[in-house]
């Protein structure tokens, strides 16, 4: 155990880092990072890339097999588009149908630089807002490309029959989201993710019907198979039968989502996990920027110990809702004690703290800033509800626009809130509090979305690429679909063009035998522990450590303590885990245990990454590094890089590699949402 007292006042934590990671090795030439950013001015990079990349001719595409793991926006769009191009696609889905992937739960919308509102939007502005929102920790070239293809996504989705909201004249409607001063968000009620996913699912179904995509449901990837240094297949567990299955291909694409359930309680679905990322990490893929985990400001607060997940209230609510806590501590105390109601507090005694601190963006400031500001007020004793909640009030919008207009915009969200909380948000303000929602960090990829393992690609939330330190609202859907529809299907050909003479792979090779054997041994090892704690009990414990110490406010001491406490949970896991039932049939407890085992690795890596980053930046807030007025103090001199972690073996220190970030098209500045 570390001596936490001794850590006090130790701001430069490099000596501490030496205990957890090998940070010198990054200087070695064999570990240089090549992000493959094309030459030329930013606006021409993607065009130039496409003009010069190698393609695969239609006859040869037929001979090439691709595995896509995941069926969310990124996975489904990639699988269907690769199949449309002529590749043979094998598509894995963890749920019972591709339509249920967690992208379906995205509520608010999708950004695009269409400038249909004539409010000054452009590809450059969307690019600029995204880089700035990400606090200058995203790769410029990737973000520009994202903004460039954003318009194609809207065209694609409309043609699929996605019923976006429209104006009375019949053209598409837009709304505003956090971190932007233009209206560029396209939406379908509060169900945009659902409609976009069903669009991608429809395109996928067309290819399944044509036989170009083979779709396997209720399968969970358990390992990556590498042959001669290239990704050539996967091992999966059939969740219905418990059988271990093998699949081979010329290339493998991961579209497996984020690791937000590291915190146990999150807005993610029950099945969301970080396992595929950990599997490929152990095989040589780098994990990048893991400390950048988004805590979403508008979620329904935690109600009790038996809670299994948290529910998000769309960011779009911040268009019309005003966020406040009482100005006077005694009012907050009275509300918490049930002696006063929020409606008893007159306007002059309400602290609209976002409008007060960030007048230019007000309630629409980015998520990381809004979350931290809520925590700051609650920590200072002004929280309502259990003390960990703030108000989101629609009184003012109802007074201004009428109750019908508000119902028209947010009716389904208000109903959802009432169902969960038993409060009527038309009459009393909603209570909200931040919760784990999205992970900007993930598997490192180059400009082509290829990982550090040849032939292994990562798209959507599971990669680290476009959001830097913080993701703006309505940009996750944009990135997932950009990767799947318009980026990967092109960039992948640059890799596959070398593979046209490689015959189809069989799954009876020694590499597959070995990988399957290891998976079986791993499962057996967990089954044999025969302790007393269920996977959920241990996951809750781990989640608690992560939320308290690796959550919204992080410190040197806290992170060192977190690493120790994660280690304690890990020991308990391997000595006292109980999995009832058997491994050779459906076993939901075994599924949870396997995911938790991977989360234990992920959580430690998140803490190490947070410990390494001695600055406050985006969603990563180190309390030692803040300005006098409590804003994040970024350190561009020492940390303007993507932190890439390389696995070196069980229990060994990971190696830190740095991808230095260069900003050529955009002037680096301190993020300012005040004026």
């Amino acid at each position, binding site marked *: 155990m570390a001596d936490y007292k001794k850590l006090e006042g130790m701001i430069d934590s490099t000596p501490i880092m030496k205990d957890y990671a090998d940070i010198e090795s990054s200087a070695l030439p064999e570990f240089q990072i090549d992000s493959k950013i094309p030459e030329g001015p930013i606006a021409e990079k993607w065009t130039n890339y496409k003009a010069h990349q190698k393609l695969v001719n239609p006859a040869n595409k037929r001979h090439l097999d691709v595995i896509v793991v995941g069926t969310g926006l990124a996975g489904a769009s990639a699988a269907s588009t690769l199949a449309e191009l002529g590749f043979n696609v094998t598509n894995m889905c963890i749920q019972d149908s591709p339509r249920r992937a967690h992208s379906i739960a995205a509520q608010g919308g999708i950004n695009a630089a269409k400038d249909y509102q004539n409010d000054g939007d452009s590809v450059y502005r969307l690019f600029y807002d995204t880089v700035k929102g990400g606090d200058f920790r995203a790769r410029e070239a990737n973000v520009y490309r994202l903004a460039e293809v954003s318009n194609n996504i809207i065209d*694609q989705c409309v043609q699929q029959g996605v019923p976006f909201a429209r104006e009375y004249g*019949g053209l598409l409607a837009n709304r505003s989201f956090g971190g932007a001063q233009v209206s560029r968000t396209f939406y379908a009620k509060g169900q945009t993710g659902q409609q976009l996913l069903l669009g991608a*699912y429809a395109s996928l*179904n067309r290819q399944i019907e044509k036989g170009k995509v083979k779709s396997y449901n209720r399968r969970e990837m358990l390992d990556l198979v590498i042959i001669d240094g290239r990704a050539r297949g996967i091992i999966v567990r059939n969740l219905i039968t418990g059988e271990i299955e093998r699949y081979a291909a010329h290339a493998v694409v991961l579209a497996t989502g984020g690791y937000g359930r590291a915190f146990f309680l999150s807005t993610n679905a029950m099945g969301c996990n970080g396992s595929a990322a950990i599997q490929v990490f152990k095989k040589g893929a780098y994990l990048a920027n893991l400390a950048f985990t988004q805590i979403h400001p508008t979620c329904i607060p935690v109600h*009790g110990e038996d*809670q299994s997940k948290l529910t998000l209230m769309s960011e779009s609510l911040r268009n019309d809702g005003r966020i406040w806590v009482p100005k006077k501590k005694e009012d907050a105390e009275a509300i918490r004690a049930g002696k006063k109601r929020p409606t008893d507090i007159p306007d002059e005694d309400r602290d609209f703290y976002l409008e007060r601190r960030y007048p230019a963006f007000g309630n629409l400031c980015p998520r990381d800033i809004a979350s931290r500001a809520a925590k700051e007020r609650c920590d200072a004793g002004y929280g309502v509800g259990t003390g960990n909640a703030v108000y989101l009030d629609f009184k003012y919008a109802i007074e201004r626009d009428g109750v019908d207009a508000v119902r028209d915009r947010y009716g389904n969200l208000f109903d959802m809130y009432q169902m969960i909380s038993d409060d009527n948000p038309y009459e009393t303000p909603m209570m909200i509090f931040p919760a784990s929602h999205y992970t900007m960090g993930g598997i490192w990829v180059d400009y082509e979305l290829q990982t550090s393992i040849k032939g292994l690609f990562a798209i959507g939330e599971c990669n680290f690429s476009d959001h830097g330190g913080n993701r703006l609202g309505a940009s996750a859907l944009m990135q997932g679909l950009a990767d799947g529809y318009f980026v990967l299907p092109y960039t992948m050909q640059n890799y596959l063009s070398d593979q046209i003479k490689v015959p189809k792979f069989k799954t009876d090779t020694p590499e597959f035998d070995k990988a399957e054997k290891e998976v079986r041994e791993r499962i057996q090892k967990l089954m044999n522990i025969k302790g007393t704690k269920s996977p959920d009990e241990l996951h809750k414990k781990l989640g608690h450590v992560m939320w308290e110490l690796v959550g919204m406010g992080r410190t040197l001491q806290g992170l060192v303590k977190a690493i120790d406490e994660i280690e304690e949970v890990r020991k308990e896991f391997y000595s006292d885990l109980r999995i*009832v039932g058997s491994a050779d049939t459906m076993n939901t407890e075994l599924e949870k245990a396997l995911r938790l085992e991977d989360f234990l690795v992920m959580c430690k890596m998140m803490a190490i990454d947070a410990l390494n980053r001695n600055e406050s930046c985006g969603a990563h807030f180190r309390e030692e590094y803040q300005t006098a007025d409590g804003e994040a103090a970024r350190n561009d001199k020492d940390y303007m890089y993507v932190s890439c972690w390389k696995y070196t073996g069980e229990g060994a220190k990971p190696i830190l590699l740095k991808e230095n970030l260069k900003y050529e098209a955009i002037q680096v500045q301190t993020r300012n949402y005040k004026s």
Partner: protein
Amino acid sequence: MEKNINVNLKIWRQRGPKEKGSFQNYRVENVSTGTSFLEMLDMLNQQLVEKGEEPVVFDSDCREGICGMCSLYINGHPHGPVQGITTCQLHMRKFNNEDTITIEPWRSAAFPVIRDLMVDRNAFDKIQQAGGYVSFNCGGAPDANATPISKEIADEAMDSATCIGCGACVAACKNGSAMLFVSAKVSQFALLPQGQVERARRARAMVAKMDELGFGNCTNTGACAAECPKNISLSNIARLNREFLKAKIAE
């Protein structure tokens, strides 16, 4: 205000599709009324695991009413006694202390039980694969604002597209018909200009696939719409009937 209640559960347990199932009785105590129904089942499963027994298997994922994965038949109603919500949105405040709650899987020939409360809804995917899409390849789409669509039509298409594919309509129907599910998708595309070209083919193909997969006939009872967690309207079925008839006449 929230309080704690005790509930008695009668839950269908079944090892596999071909095995005989039966109801088993359980009791969960001290459930906060602010807890969701599925969290109450999580509590039960935690109790079972502590006793070394296998947990009750049920589907659930997003737990916010949109993925369509949860599928419990509670006290004789798909998704339980409250209208317009999914099982995961049901909260224990809708039950009383010492209530006995009966929980079954969807029961339909087209949805075989996998284990306990989990069923196989693959037939729904197959129906969508038969024609639930606009046939075009990525990259070929015109500008999104090239074709105006009236707000009323777009909103109506959105209402149809809101279907989450949970299967409650089939479970609620005495004939096990999938008409509401199929009609919602056919309606969405029949309303929108993008869906016009394949309109007739789509209606024919999806209905044919539905019939092939063992779903029953529609006798206009309306239980499907009454139990639908997303309030998909019966008018979709009327539209599908028109679409199908027109397609047949045009053949």
